[in-house]
Structures are given as C-alpha cells and as structure tokens.
C-alpha cells in the first residue's frame, strides 16, 4: 500500500513549504551565541557546556515543535476541510492518521539531523573530539520526540489544539518526572493519593528512559557528555517507545475513525 506514504510525504511537503525549517535558524543562532558566551565564561568547560546545554536545548526545542505541529496536525485538515477531499478517496481513516503521523515524524527527523549538524559544527570549532556516545544521545532524543508527537496527535484526535497542547505539555512534564512521582507516592502514607500518583506514573510515558541527563545511573549523576549508556540500553528504550507509540496511535486511530468530520 503506497497510500500511507503518499499522505506522509504530502504532510512533510506541507511542513517544508510552510517554512518549518526556518526554526532551525533560530536554533543555530541561539547555539552559536550561547557557545560564544560559554567560551568567554570558562575556557576549559566550554565543550562540556555546549554539549550539555546544546543537546538539552535541542531536545526542548524539538519537543515544543512536535507538540505544536502535532496538535494541529489533524485539526488543520478538519478546519480547512481538506479531509473532505481526502477521506472519500479509497483510504481508511487509520491510514490518514498514520500518514499524518509519519509525515510529521519525518519532518522532525530532518529537523533533528540539521540541528545536530549545527551543534556538531560548533563543537568541532571548539576543538572537541566527537564521541560516538552522542549518536546514542541523539537517538534517545528522537525517541522521546516521537512519543510526545504521538501523545499530541492522540489528544488532537478528539480535542481542540489549545486543550491538546495543554494536555500534551502536561503529559510531557509528568513523563519526565515519573521517578519523582513514584518516590513521592512511596513516601506518603495516606490511602488515596499514592494510588492516584502511581496510576499517573503508569499511564504517562516514562520519558526518563530517554532523557538521561541528570538522572542517577548506578548511584551516579550523569551528564550528557559522559558515556553512560550503551546501544543495548538504546534498544530497550526503542522497544518501550515503540510499544507506547503503538498503543497511543491505535487509540488515536480508533477515536478518529468514529468521529464526524464536520
């Protein structure tokens, strides 16, 4: 079936033509200005700072774009009534949702690659040796972005962009704090609240699997610049992401399939 890819490519084309990639310029400027500032601050630490903050910034930036584009992904088609042309064609509604999702995923992947290019160039100019561990880091960042995108698409399959955006940001913040939520739940000794907290920690994606900076691994605080994970870990994280994506996207497809397109 070439129909889902056709929809995905069209979505990608829309993002490109609507100048989504211009946001890259913004990112590039921020990274370069920041790295110059670090250089002035601390001569020896500048590579570590650029790496840590650069990748953290990249992650935050992509999550933001994923949320924004994700909540508008389906909504825009409804609002502009382009679905009226698309869905009477011999496609299933789930193919539409999937196509839109993969199109956005492709857009984000391209954006990620370009951002990496900018960041690595700056690091190179600072004289840093580029570690292979950075590839794992980038992979984890992308997995997290995919999960957030799917969550955004899920909410937007039944809700307005504004609400979906708020929900998505909420899930993102909770997702990044899953270990903390669990810790709080463990400390409390009343009956109701810990149950609720554990429930929340179970439902939202555990984004700490992907965002490893500042986490404690083997009792040590890790920083991005350190070599802290291996490909086996990335593989496990991919499995988790795939599972979460599958569930959320299936729900989104089911909800969208029932919906009246008005």
């Amino acid at each position: 079936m070439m129909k889902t890819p056709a929809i995905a490519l069209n979505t990608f084309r829309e993002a490109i033509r609507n100048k989504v990639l211009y946001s890259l310029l913004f990112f590039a400027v921020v990274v370069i200005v920041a790295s110059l500032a670090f250089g002035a601050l601390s001569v020896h630490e500048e590579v570590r700072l650029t790496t840590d903050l650069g990748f953290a910034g990249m992650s935050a930036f992509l999550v933001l774009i994923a949320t924004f584009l994700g909540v508008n992904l389906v909504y825009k088609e409804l609002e502009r009534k382009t679905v009226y042309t698309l869905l009477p064609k011999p496609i299933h509604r789930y193919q539409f949702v999937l196509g839109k999702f993969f199109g956005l995923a492709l857009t984000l992947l391209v954006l990620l690659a370009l951002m990496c290019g900018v960041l690595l160039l700056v690091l190179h100019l600072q004289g840093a040796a580029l570690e292979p561990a950075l590839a794992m880091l980038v992979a984890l960042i992308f997995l997290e972005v995919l999960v957030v995108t799917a969550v955004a698409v899920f909410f937007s399959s039944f809700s307005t962009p504004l609400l979906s955006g708020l929900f998505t940001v909420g899930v993102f913040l909770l997702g990044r704090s899953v270990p903390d939520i669990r810790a709080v739940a463990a400390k409390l000794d009343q009956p109701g609240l810990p149950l609720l907290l554990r429930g929340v920690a179970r439902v939202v994606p555990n984004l700490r699997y992907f965002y490893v900076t500042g986490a404690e691994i083997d009792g040590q605080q890790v920083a991005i610049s350190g070599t802290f994970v291996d490909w086996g870990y990335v593989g496990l994280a991919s499995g988790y992401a795939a599972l979460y994506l599958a569930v959320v996207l299936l729900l989104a497809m089911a909800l969208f399939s029932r919906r009246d397109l008005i």
Partner: protein
Amino acid sequence: MHSSALQPAVQSAVQPVGQPVGQPVGQPAAGSAAESEGGTPALRTHQLAKTYALGFFRKKVRAIRDVSLRVERGEIFGLLGPNGAGKTTTLKVLMGLVRPTSGEAEVLGRPVGDLVAKGRLGYLPESPYFYDYLTGRELLVFVAELFGLPRRESRRRADALLEQVGLQRAAQLALRRYSKGMLQRVGLAQALINDPELVVLDEPLSGLDPIGRKQIRELIAQLGARGKTVVFSSHILSDVELLAQRAAILVGGRTVDSGALDHLVQARILSTEVLIDRPAPVLLQALAGGAYAAEAVGETVRVVVPEGEDVGRLVDLVRRHGGALLALTPRRESLEDVVVRRATDDNGAGAAAPLPARDAQPMGA
C-alpha cells in the same frame, strides 16, 4: 480558458488504465453496468437522518430528518433544495464523512465507506478547499496516488484533466493563488482522476462566471453521455432542468418529492406576463376595468394574466384597440414556488408525491 478546451479532451483524457474496477469508457448507459452489480442503484438512502450534537452541552441540531433517495446507474440526478435543506449533509453521509443517526445508505450497492465503492467514486465537496501549498498539478498527482495509480499514469491523468477543465496554464500555480472558480475546476478535476463510475458533486456550478457555468455544465452532460452516474446538488432549478433526468427535492431535511423532472416541476404555467408598447388610451381603459393586474413602465404596460385565464382575450383586446405587443412570457413554476408549495401544503394535495418520506408533522417540528 476557451470553451473549446473542454470538448476534445473528454474522450481521451481519462481511460480506466490500471483501474481494476473501472468500467469501459463510453459505455452508453446503465444497462450492463447495473446487471454486473446485480441491479443495485448507484446511490440509495432510506429514511436517512442525522442529528448533530454540538458543543459542550451536546445541543441537538437536526440536519436531515428523513431522506430517501434512489439514483439509478447511468443517470444524471439533481439534488434540489433551498439553503439549509440538508443536501450537503446527505452527501457527506454518503461519502462516509459523517455517520447517520439512523436510516440506511448505500453507494454502488455497497455500504458507505466501502473501499471498493470509494475507488469508483469521485466527489467534489461544497466550496472546496485544498492543500494550498500544492500546485494544481501536484494536487491531482497526489490524489491519483491515493487511488493507487502508478506515478506515470497519475501525471498523465493530471495533465489531461487540467486541460479538460481549462486550467493548463495554472497547472504550476500554487492553489492559494487560485480564484474561487479555479478551485471549483480543480476540484472537479480531482473528482474525475480515477475515471469514476459515480460522480458526486456538491454545488458544482456555484462560484463560477457564466462561461464557467456553461463549461462545467457541458462537462457534466458529457459525463452523462459516457454512461457515468452523476449526482449533483443545487438550489437553482434551471441547472437541474438543463442537466438532470431525475431529481429529488429536499426541504427541511426531508425528501418531499423525487422523480423525473417533468413530474417534479409541472409544466404548469402560473401566469403569463404580457408587455404592451404604447397602448391606445381605449385599451388602457379596457384594462383598468378588467380583471388583470396592469402596471405602467414608462411607455410600456406590463399585464399579468393569472393561471387559467385565456391570454388570447388580452391579445384580442390589444389587436382591437391598438398597441404593440412586445412580449408574452409564460411564468412557469420555479424552484421557489415548488419549495413553497411543498413546504406549505402539508398533506401533499395536488401533487403526486409517492415518497413515504412525508408525514403529517409541520416542518418546524
């Protein structure tokens, strides 16, 4: 945009190449197609109803209440009705865009949403809007891909159809730069990309200038001549009269009547308007005493002879007393009249309305 662009392209533009389910081009009429489908109609609805639940409080809006239609294969069918009658809603249900609240709907003998039926279907939405970042040609190629057509064939059809609807010069123009009429044309082109057996057009003639209307009307007629089933909605009776063999009238979300066109709009002449230039004073006096409504417009007098009265008598009067007979125009029943008649006479008196769609409730209920 020459009107000649429309004619020669039609036969050659779209052939059912690579269409597993396509039916041969130029097939004259419904006969064999209907047989192969077990005689099912092209479209069928039975007591279709749709109630929207809007907003937070699920406020109920009854968009259609009782729509029963039957469109045979190979015919051009008009869906007539005033604004808000439920034409668009009915078509949206048939296209699988909204779910009916109750009732039955079938497309090409299959349930709504069936992929095989969708593959043989073309649909032009009301005041269409497309991906505005695409060019006209890109849109058509994209749409062709959704039918699983190979790239080459997609491009070939896109170009042929752009020519057919008179947009070849705008092929490389982004759709956001298209005028309303151009969007309507490209919308028609995308509805025809799969050489559909059934073409459903929601207000295909709205937003077009007189030349455009004529071109699109010709295109619809040609589709009909090639054995396609065409269903189109309109609130303009003359468009339906010019094109359709049969039609249904929707009022207030119900089919109040359907059938052959001459059955729907009776040839009945409501009144005859007679224009008399420079009538002799004697004639004016005779008119003033008569039963006619007369009105002077400058040098001329307009007289309305009501239904059932002999126009010949007035003509004789003019002959006898002096004055030039300028025009004699019968005013036939218009859609407005039909709709008003249908909406007011509740029990259907005077009209052969065989549809079960009518009940005794007042329209506003």
